[in-house]
């Protein structure tokens, strides 16, 4: 039995999908660019600038290598949110006059995609927010049917941040190519977790983030395909950096960090993913003994890092409060300031109650077997305690069908 006393140790971090710690190898590579080689990479007149520029270009190569792209196809941004905004608004605005003003996206996309599309709707575009199947995956026939003659752009994430399911990007991309629709993929949650080969994938634009892959916060990239050549309208204007697609002084140390993080991901992802899969399976095996638990999202088309489970008849916020010994998330971190149930789980057709009682466990590079075992024991004891408190659990045990009860609104 693991030690259940929660106060004598820092919580176990199982929220790697919200953000990851910077790998120490990455931090070591970054620090000289903060202190010693601090030149502005756009300064062409002295070695401070040249050193910085060389580091930026090396990092660009590393990012390109992880996803098998040409370094010239990589544009630096401040993170995946900016990449998504730049890709969606930039491509939609550029191609609106030739292709049309309809956009397709998925109801379970990250807020940065959904809200960028909503902003375009305010500017006169129309949009289809396609509901995924109950397992979280996009039905290809339904996707194809959503395409209209004036569809300019489709945006589908490779890996979902809440439930970790992997979409069939190749098939969706082929449908888009056939229909002449620009295809954007948010891959913020995918790098280092699934193999990405942009030389063969029919993808026009792809967003990346460093801080989900053991790199620093505040840096990301956008892949802009050269063959076929995709054009985007810049969203940020200024010195004309990044071939005019994205202006602003480049944060050399952060770019260096992203390059190193992606290099490590490329070299270590195969063995790392095997280890993480073992840990996830151990976690799942431990938790599925608990009565009335439901895994959210398909388990086979899924990254090994993610487990999203609803614990029926236990309220989500009290559950989070009960499991202070572990750092996990209920719903996506970006929206967890609100008390709304996760819109992703709602889109899968989960009831409000099940959506409210969901926990996302995300496992990563520094998770240990002991962490997983502690988590299983902690969850078991706390779920027991909360169900002991729950009138719904009592009713369920008495054989009452809660969905048939008439609840007084309040």
């Amino acid at each position: 039995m693991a030690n259940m006393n929660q106060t004598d140790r820092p919580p176990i971090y199982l929220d790697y999908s919200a953000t990851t710690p910077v790998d120490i190898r990455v931090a070591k590579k970054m620090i000289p660019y903060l202190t010693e080689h601090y030149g502005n990479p756009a300064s062409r007149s002295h070695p401070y600038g040249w050193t910085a520029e060389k580091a930026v270009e090396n990092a660009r190569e590393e990012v390109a290598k992880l996803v098998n792209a040409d370094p010239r196809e990589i544009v630096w941004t401040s993170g995946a949110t900016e990449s998504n905004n730049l890709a969606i608004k930039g491509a939609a605005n550029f191609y609106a006059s030739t292709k049309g003003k309809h956009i397709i996206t998925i109801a379970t996309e990250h807020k940065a995609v959904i809200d960028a599309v909503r902003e375009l709707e305010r500017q006169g575009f129309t949009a289809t927010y396609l509901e995924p199947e109950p397992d979280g995956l996009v039905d290809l026939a339904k996707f194809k049917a959503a395409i209209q003659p004036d569809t300019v752009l489709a945006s589908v994430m490779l890996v979902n941040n809440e439930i970790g399911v992997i979409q069939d990007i190749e098939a969706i991309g082929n449908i888009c190519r056939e229909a002449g629709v620009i295809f954007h993929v948010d891959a913020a949650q995918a790098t280092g977790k699934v193999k990405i080969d942009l030389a063969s994938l029919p993808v026009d634009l792809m967003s990346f983030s460093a801080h989900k892959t053991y790199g620093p916060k505040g840096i990301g990239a956008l892949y802009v395909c050269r063959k076929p050549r995709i054009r985007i309208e810049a969203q940020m204007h200024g010195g004309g950096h990044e071939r005019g697609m994205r202006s602003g002084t480049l944060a050399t140390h952060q770019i260096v960090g992203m390059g190193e993080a992606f290099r490590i991901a490329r070299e270590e992802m195969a063995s790392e993913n095997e280890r993480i899969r073992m840990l996830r399976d151990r976690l799942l095996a431990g938790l599925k003994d608990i009565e009335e638990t439901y895994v959210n999202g398909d388990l086979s088309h899924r990254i090994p890092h993610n487990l999203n489970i609803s614990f029926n008849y236990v309220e989500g916020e009290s559950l989070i409060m009960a499991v202070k010994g572990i750092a996990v998330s209920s719903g996506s971190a970006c929206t967890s300031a609100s008390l709304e149930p996760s819109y992703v789980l709602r889109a899968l057709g989960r009831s409000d109650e099940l959506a409210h009682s969901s926990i996302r466990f995300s496992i990563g590079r520094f998770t240990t077997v002991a962490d997983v075992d502690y988590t299983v024991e902690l969850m078991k004891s706390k779920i027991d305690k909360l169900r002991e408190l729950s009138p719904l659990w009592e009713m369920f045990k008495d054989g009452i069908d809660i969905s048939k009860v008439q609840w007084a609104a309040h």
Partner: protein
Amino acid sequence: MAYSDKVLDHYENPRNVGSLDKNDPNVGTGMVGAPACGDVMKLMIKVNDHGIIEDAKFKTYGCGSAIASSSLVTEWLKGKTVDEAYSIKNSAIAEELALPPVKIHCSVLAEDAIKAAVADIKAKQSAKATA
């Protein structure tokens, strides 16, 4: 979200968790809230022949503040008359637990639960009287 020490205390060590015999004519039950809204409270009170609440038990599905609010009222109810219980206001609960504005509805729900339990015991007693 930061919880007050009193909320944390009631949440960690809830008082009077459980159920009473709902078929007992001296037991009143109040169940309020809805699962879809994220909180359901069940409050049971046992009233003696002098109209004094002898025992109170609760079960709550909801956030830490909802659990603390119901735990607190079970402590307050014991020894009170049914009419005194009926006059407990949500503001007193919210004040005692230092609930933030977004959690005031938890104290409202606890007040509703008391009123529902009192109404139930009164209905049972008047049924007994007319029988």
